[in-house]
């Protein structure tokens, strides 16, 4: 459906650009913290592949997962895969027909991301989020802070991802019973009940092949029959009785550069957003402190609830009892006063000539201010104007694809070798008879740099109190492109 709409009058932004972004976000959320560790890398790989396949722009309509129900908070009814939806109701049952309004809006929108997150219908309000090419829709009847619902829906998606590894249509369909059980625990009468994955996992154990086999034989179940201890303790995010033979704590400092570079190569705006994702597998109730060499860099921070705010306020030290497993400890923003070093530059020469139906296209990507590190994973995407029929290009390295339907050019560059800068040159064929497009395409860039936090943030030390053993500790830095755009 969205493909059809796309060809309509609306000068749609390329769907695949959106897709790429959504996927990138997914990759960032789940995979980056894992993929580098030997232990977990195989899992990471799998995700990457699963997500990659979704780049296919001719993917079917986004499925809708709708949640219905009544009143203040999220209500219920759930997902669809392709044109079938799943639903779950809280409060009271709402007819499926309420979703017609949603589908209308979906049809009107040129692409999935343009579907308004809040739709008002005569008796209900539909709040939706769009992730992993699935719509999650909550149906509500009365006033409630919209962010309350939206944040909850995102939390639901995160939980599914946590449970099933990926949050996809097929996964939801295959695990619909677990999904139902989990949702049942997450929301009671429109009010969120347990949203910490540590607690949920004690209530409803995530499905694994092993457990399925065991359950079949022993007749035990995936459903816990005791109230998770965390639910009542002062550290509700942590399970009790955690045991590991190898005690390890890994922290990933990941920074993303959001930038807009103008035509002439000067920076219009650039900022660094960072997160510290942790994977903590420690026995017992460890109490960790993490200190930075230069905490003043962090301008604006938001914490996982486990972090003691006062300690941060007074000493600029992160002190916390960690949840078990993967979690995001901190996200931060580096203060705007610090000039952001932009690690790459793009030289471009894109010309449409008025008279001819040919245009010239040339891009070169090069490193600057990389502190001696290699830039890898470089990917250039650009949405070409409608008038471009085809492009004949030659890359000096990597592979490129131009999709004549969506007009999206993707160039997978790989590593940048400073001795031999990658470039992509060639010509564009324009539709004959139309005048030249007013706008040159914007170039979106992705890249990553290992072992570097571009802001210069450094972790000083990590200490553990409260337990006797010596944990293995690891810290990793990485810089990536966030929303990095070059205007041409």
């Amino acid at each position, binding site marked *: 459906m969205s493909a059809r709409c796309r060809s309509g009058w609306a000068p749609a932004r390329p769907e695949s650009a959106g897709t790429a972004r959504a996927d990138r976000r997914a990759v960032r959320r789940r995979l980056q913290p894992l993929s580098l560790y030997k232990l977990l890398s195989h899992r990471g790989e799998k995700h990457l592949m699963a997500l990659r396949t979704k780049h296919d722009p001719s993917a079917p309509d986004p499925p809708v997962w709708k949640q219905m129900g009544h009143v203040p908070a999220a209500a219920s009814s759930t997902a669809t895969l392709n044109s079938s939806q799943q639903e779950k109701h809280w409060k009271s049952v709402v007819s499926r027909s309420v979703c017609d309004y949603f589908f209308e809006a979906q049809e009107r929108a040129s692409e999935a991301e343009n579907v308004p997150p809040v739709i008002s219908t005569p008796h209900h309000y539909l709040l939706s989020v769009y992730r992993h090419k699935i719509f999650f829709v909550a149906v509500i009847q009365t006033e409630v802070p919209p962010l309350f619902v939206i944040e909850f829906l995102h939390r639901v998606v995160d939980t599914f991802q946590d449970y099933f590894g990926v949050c996809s249509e097929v996964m939801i369909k295959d695990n619909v019973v677990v999904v139902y059980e989990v949702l049942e625990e997450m929301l009671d009468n429109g*009010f969120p009940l347990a949203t910490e994955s540590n607690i949920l996992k004690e209530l409803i154990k995530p499905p694994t092949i092993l457990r399925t086999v065991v359950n079949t034989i022993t007749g035990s179940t995936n459903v816990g029959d005791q109230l998770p201890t965390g639910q009542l303790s002062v550290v509700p995010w942590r399970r009790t009785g955690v045991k590991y033979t190898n005690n390890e704590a890994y922290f990933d400092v990941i920074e993303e550069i959001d930038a807009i570079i103008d035509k002439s190569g000067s920076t219009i705006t650039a900022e660094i957003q960072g997160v510290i994702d942790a994977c903590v597998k420690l026995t017992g109730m460890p109490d960790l402190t993490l200190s930075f060499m230069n905490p003043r860099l962090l301008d604006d921070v938001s914490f996982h609830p486990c972090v003691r705010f006062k300690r941060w306020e007074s000493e600029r030290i992160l002190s916390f009892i960690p949840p078990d497993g993967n979690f995001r400890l901190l996200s931060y923003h580096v203060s705007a006063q610090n000039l952001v070093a932009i690690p790459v530059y793009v030289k471009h020469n894109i010309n449409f000539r008025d008279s001819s139906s040919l245009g010239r296209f040339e891009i070169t990507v090069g490193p600057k201010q990389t502190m001696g590190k290699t830039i890898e994973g470089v990917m250039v995407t650009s949405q070409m*104007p409608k008038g471009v029929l085809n492009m004949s290009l030659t890359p000096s390295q990597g592979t490129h694809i131009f999709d004549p339907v969506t007009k999206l050019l993707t160039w997978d560059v790989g590593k940048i070798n400073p001795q031999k800068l990658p470039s992509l040159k060639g010509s564009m064929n324009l539709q004959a008879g139309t*005048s030249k497009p007013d706008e040159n395409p914007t170039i979106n860039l992705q890249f990553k740099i290992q072992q570097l936090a571009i802001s210069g943030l450094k972790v000083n030390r990590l200490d553990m109190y409260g337990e006797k053993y010596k944990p293995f500790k690891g810290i990793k830095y990485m810089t990536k492109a966030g929303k990095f755009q070059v205007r041409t």
Partner: protein
Amino acid sequence: MAASPAYGEEKGGSSSLGEPEYGHDPASGGIFASDYKRHDDLKEMLDSNKDSLKLEAMKRIVAMIARGKNASDLFPAVVKNVACKNIEVKKLVYVYLVRYAEEQQDLALLSISTFQRGLKDPNQLIRASALRVLSSIRVPIIVPIMMLAIKEAASDMSPYVRKTAAHAIPKLYSLDSDQKDQLIEVIEKLLADKTTLVAGSVVMAFEEVCPERIDLIHKNYRKLCNLLIDVEEWGQVVIINMLTRYARTQFLSPNQNESLLEESAEKAFYGSEEEDTKDAKAEAASLAKRKPYVMDPDHRLLLRNTKPLLQSRNAAVVMAVAQLYFHLAPKAEVGVIAKALVRLLRSHSEVQYVVLQNVATMSIKRRGMFEPYLKSFYIRSTDPTQIKILKLEVLTNLANETNISTILREFQTYIRSMDKDFVAATIQAIGRCATNIGKVRDTCLNGLVQLLSNRDELVVAESVVVIKKLLQMQPAQHSEIIKHMAKLTDNIQVPMARASILWLIGEYCEHVPKIAPDVLRKMAKSFTNEEDIVKLQVINLAAKLYLTNSKQSKLLTQYVLNLAKYDQNYDIRDRARFIRQLIVPTEKSGALNKYAKKLFLAQKPAPILESSFKDRDHFQLGSLSHLLNAKAVGYQELPDWPDEAPDPSVRNVEVPEWTKCTSREKRKEKVEKPFYSDSEGESGPTESADSEPESDSEESGSSSSSGTSSSSSEEEEEEEEEEEEEGSGEQSEDKEGEEEEEKRKKRKEKGGLRKVSPRITPPLPQPVPSSNIISTSLVTDLEGLTLTDTSLAPALLSPAFGAVRTYELLHRMAGEGLSVEYCFSRRPFPGDPHMVAVQIQISNNTDAEVKSLRVSEPKLLAGMRIQEFPEIGMGTVVEGRWDTVAALCFQRACTHTRHFYVSIQPPVGELMAPVFMSENEFRKEQGKLTGMSEITEKLTLPEKCRSDHAIVQQVTSAANVGRVPCGADNEYRFAAKTVTSGSLVLITLEWREGAAAQLTVNSEKMVIGTMLVKDIIQALAQ
């Protein structure tokens, strides 16, 4: 494929369409092509006695429910399994029951007894889930059972079950609203619950059942504020939103002075320093119409306790705090939310969408707040259109003289975007910038005119419309542009644009006398093919031309009017008739004819281009209603600030309203019901929290639990006590605690000081007079500094000056003959230099003997310590000490027969000890404590305070400080260290000519500094 048609089918159908793999899913329709067979199969499985089969069957049924298929005919088979031992089966049966019970009420009743049994289960999880399901079954017959279950669960030992009870309340309410009164009782009870787990859920229930019963919140207000940070995130959102509404009804607007002072208020105007001046000038101000604004400490408490939540990872919490600050905070403090909101812009696009809507509204009212973040609102080509348009709105709101050039440069990039809706919005935005900021009007206009040659018609059309509005402001200078636009009528087809051009030409036909008739000629030719709005404008143009230039246009006008007369649209026919009568003079035409020109060519005010977000802030920000700009069902209006603050004492019985202004000096005691004092203890005063350097890890968890534990231990204690002391028939009293002080207590036989002192009404703001008598004796005692140990004597001392103020702790009426006063001895506490000594004087005014005075249950705010003193009977001396920064704290004082609740709140000035330093040292230290650490206030010295002696006397009485020598004779310096942390506090009082003086306090503890300034000013003003 189109989703909507497929999904509309009720049964079975959807699976056959276009989803090849669907059939492989055992739970789906593929295998069980026929409904009836399928159900037989499932029934069999459900009836078997193997759990695994039952489980399998239930899973399939749940999968059916999930796909929206009707599984209601399985109800009898499923409901039988409600008592199944297997917990997973049981849970799935619950899911099923909740879904279908409403349809099959009679059968659903079969399951009720199972739940009733479950409610008694020793496992709290099972109790909770039984209550959950029971309350989710929407069967009216069981309302009484539900009511009973909720009431019972509300007093369950497990907080988790109580939380579930709170959730059940709105469910029952929606089923049967007649239960409201009973439910409110339960809500009231649960509101008093001290666990963080329950707080969010019960407030949610409150909001749904009885949001109008704001009175239920009073007693819990401080508790909620203090617990807030430990409540789970969803509860925080609900509580903050509710408290916003509450605060709007209970406090005065912090910005009310604004209207008096116009815009001149400087930034710091509403800072707390200001409050002090206000106090000082209280008398004068009372003459003024409006009372000076002093922020209620509870109001401050709310603002302070919510601020850390801006750091929450949950966007909904951040938004809730942001709206609270926007609606409640003094103007100068609102700025803190900007950073957090900008951070949310990095989040998912749905979150961005909501946040930007709110930012757009805020940025109209408080533009300065977001200006530093201007660049965060720059638009990327990958943003969804709705985000782009909202960002544009924000950018436009933020535009001012200084940043307009950057913004316009950005806009130029946007105009070339491929997203035409966005381009159109950008053009509108440029128009708005041009209207709001005069100096760029010409630049914008030129830019827009260039757009007129754009190839995209939509762009051109939008530009025309905007240019039209801009030209209206200063038409005379722009006839060139009008001519240019006249030419466009040949090409441009968008009706709105054509209409705009015609209107412009008509309106300003005098500026383009040659072109206008020609345009009319062309339009007359194409009249019949135009859209209605264009036709109307053609008629207008004709009429205007006829009036100004009838020679050239008379025939044309008549032609147009004739065409219009036979138009299909009645509106146009109507207009034509009307205009003909008006402008063409005939014998019949009335007096209006003469005024036709005035009517048509009157000066028209230029349109004001306004943001669509203007005035949206009458909706509570962050609400659904705000987002939709329409009232959603169940929206609670955000009330306006009251003109007069309602009685603040409702939140606080121990500390009635006077304490707001005089809290430093007066304490008052009342015998309270136990639960009340509990909440009081927790809610303490505002100052202490800030100044405490406390970071300890347990703190977050412990604050909530302490409340609970203390209340229970209190009860035990009470019993004990009763046993112990049965035999004695007297009265006693005792004391309680406070922080940061050591205290010493002494007591006298009845008839002593106590009786003499004339204090009758505890709440009197100025206790000073009463202390005279005491102080004389004190002074003498003071001389012999060793009183600590011989505490029988009235051991009040103040090393430097005579008058030590005493404060009443327990009035003899309230204390049934026993009265207690306290004062700050200002001597170091021997046991611990970090404590402050409080001397307590107890008098027995009755004939009976008093025994066993003691502090039974000190309630200390975090960071406070008290050194207990042993039980005393008459004639013994008691000593206690307290530590840390103080505020007030309430405790129960017990005698063997009675308990009294008392509290001590030390003035901040007593929490320090004098230090002696030279003038140079003083200067040096002062130099280190500037900026944030310095608080300066101007004041007026009253007549009697204009002598060296009086000033020194007053300052030293207000605070325990030592005088520092000073060269200048109109300057007074004092220095002290806080007792607990040893931070320096430096006071400088500069006496200028006449009554004017300036007070400067330097201290790294800003809270202490602020309060000290206030106290000193008050002392000097007396």
